[in-house]
C-alpha cells in the first residue's frame, strides 16, 4: 500500500522522467500563479515592498552598468563607423542598439543575478526552515504572499529599470560622443529620437515585462522547491540565476524574430 507511487518503474529512464516531471511541475507553478493573481485577498502592501526592494535597491548597480555600457559601446563602435566617415551616425546607432537590445538584455541579466538569486535564496531558506509551513498552518496562503507578490514586482519593475538603464546608457554615450565629436546634448538627443521608433520602445517594454516575469517566476519556483537544507538553498539561488539567464536569451531571440516579422524583414 505505502509508497506505491515511488515503486513504479520509470517510463524512459529516471533522468528523462525527472526532466519531464520537472517541466510539468514548473507548468503547474506558472498556472497556479495566473489562478491566484486575480483572486482576493490581495497583498498590495507586500507588492509595494517588493517593488521597492527590487527597483530602488537595484538602482546603483543598474546605473553603473548602464553608464559603462553606454561609454564602452560608443567607444567600440566609433572605429568601424569612422572607416566609412560615418561617425555622425553614432547617436542613432547607439540609440537603436541600446533601446532594442542592450538595455533590456543588460538590465535583465543583472536583475537575474541580483534579484533572481536573492528571491531563490530567500524563499529557499524559508522553505527549509519551515517558515512556509508556518504560514500554511496559520491559514495564510504562502504562494500568494511570497510568489505572487514577488513575480508581480519583478514584472512591473524590470520595464521601469530598463527605461532607466536606456537613459543612463545614452547619457554615458553622450559624454563620450560629446568629448570626441563635440556634439551638443540637444543634437545628440534629436538624433536619438529620430532613430528610434514606437515599435522599438513598445517591443522593448513588452520584452522587459516577459524578462521580469521570467526572473520572478524562476526565482520563486526554485526557492519554493528547494530541499536538503542550506546546500539546497545555495543550489536554488544558483539555478535560479542560470535558468533565468538561459530563458532570457531564448526570449530575446524569439522577440527578435517576432519584431523582425512585424517590420517585414
Amino acid at each position: 500500500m505505502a509508497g506505491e507511487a515511488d515503486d513504479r518503474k520509470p517510463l524512459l529512464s529516471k533522468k528523462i522522467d525527472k526532466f519531464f516531471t520537472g517541466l510539468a511541475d514548473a507548468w503547474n507553478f506558472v498556472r497556479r500563479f495566473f489562478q491566484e493573481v486575480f483572486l482576493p485577498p490581495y497583498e498590495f502592501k507586500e507588492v509595494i515592498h517588493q517593488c521597492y526592494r527590487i527597483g530602488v535597491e537595484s538602482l546603483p548597480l543598474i546605473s553603473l552598468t548602464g553608464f559603462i555600457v553606454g561609454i564602452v559601446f560608443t567607444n567600440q563602435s566609433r572605429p568601424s563607423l569612422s572607416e566609412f566617415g560615418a561617425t555622425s551616425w553614432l547617436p542613432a546607432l547607439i540609440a537603436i542598439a541600446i533601446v532594442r537590445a542592450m538595455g533590456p538584455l543588460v538590465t535583465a541579466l543583472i536583475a537575474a543575478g541580483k534579484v533572481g538569486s536573492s528571491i531563490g535564496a530567500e524563499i529557499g531558506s524559508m522553505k527549509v526552515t519551515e517558515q512556509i509551513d508556518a504560514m500554511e498552518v496559520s491559514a495564510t496562503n504562502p504562494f500568494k504572499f511570497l510568489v505572487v507578490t514577488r513575480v508581480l514586482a519583478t514584472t512591473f519593475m524590470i520595464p521601469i529599470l530598463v527605461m532607466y538603464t536606456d537613459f543612463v546608457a545614452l547619457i554615458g554615450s553622450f559624454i563620450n560622443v560629446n568629448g570626441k565629436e563635440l556634439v551638443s546634448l540637444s543634437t545628440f538627443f534629436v538624433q536619438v529620437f529620430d532613430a528610434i521608433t514606437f515599435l522599438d520602445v513598445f517591443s522593448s517594454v513588452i520584452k522587459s515585462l516577459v524578462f521580469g516575469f521570467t526572473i520572478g517566476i524562476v526565482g520563486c519556483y526554485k526557492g519554493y522547491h528547494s530541499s536538503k537544507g542550506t546546500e539546497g538553498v545555495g543550489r536554488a539561488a544558483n539555478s535560479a540565476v542560470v535558468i533565468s539567464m538561459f530563458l532570457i536569451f531564448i526570449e530575446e531571440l524569439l522577440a527578435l524574430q517576432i519584431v523582425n516579422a512585424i517590420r517585414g524583414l
Partner: protein
Amino acid sequence: MDNREKVVVVRDLYKSFGDLDVLEGVDLDLHREENLVVLGRSGTGKSVLIKIMVGLLRQDSGTMQVLGKEVSKLPLKELNALRLKIGFSFQNSALYDSMTVRENMEFPLVRNVKNLTKKEISMRIEELLEAVGLPQSINQMPSELSGGQKKRIGVARTLVLNPEIMLYDEPTAGLDPITCVDINNLINEVRERYKTTSIVITHDLACAKQTGDRMAVLLDGKFKAMGTFEEVFPRAVDERIKSFYDYNFINS
C-alpha cells in the same frame, strides 16, 4: 474510561515516503484539555503524525479526525478554518526572518481576524508577549533572539488566533536544561490559561514527565505503549522503551 470529548481520533493511519514506511497503523484518541506526549527516537514519524493533523502531509490510508472533521477530505477553505483552531509550534520556531516580533504576530492575526483595530491588534500582541514573558522583544528581529526566546515567541504567535489544540514539535530541542524547564512550564501555563488540548512531540523524557498527562511511545510505526508516565516507563517491558528511559534518567 475517559468520558471527555475526543478532539483527535486517529485510526489505522499509514504513511510512507518512497520505500520507507513511517507510520504503520497508528491509532490514537486525544481528549479535550488533555496533554499527550508522543515519544520516540528520531525518524520514527512523530512529526509526520502532527503534520498530517494540520494537513501539511496527507496519509496513505487510515483516518485522521480533528474536532470531528476528517482532515484529508476537507476542501482548502474548510481546512484553513480548522487550522485556525490548531496552533503549531515548530521545532525551529519558524519565525519569519524578515519581520520583527510584532510583525510575526500580526501576520496571522490581520489575515484571519477581520475588523480588528490597530489598538486591538497591539493589545492582543502585548498581552501574549507578556504571557510568554517577553514583552520587551516586540520590536526585535528573530536573529536578535536566543533559541529559548524564539520558542516562546513561536508559541505566542500560535496563540494569537486562540487555538483549541496546540501541537508542539520538539519544544526543548537544542536548548539548555534551564531553558528546557522554562519551556515546559510555558507549555503547562498555556494549557491552564488558554484551556488548550496539546500534543507534545519530544524525545526528552524530562519534558514528557513535566508536561504530559499521558505518554505514547511510537516504535516501528505504531504506538507500542500508552499511559501515564509511571505506567509506561519505570515498568517498561519492551527493551527499547526501557533503554529510552535508562538513557534519559540514568545515563544523563
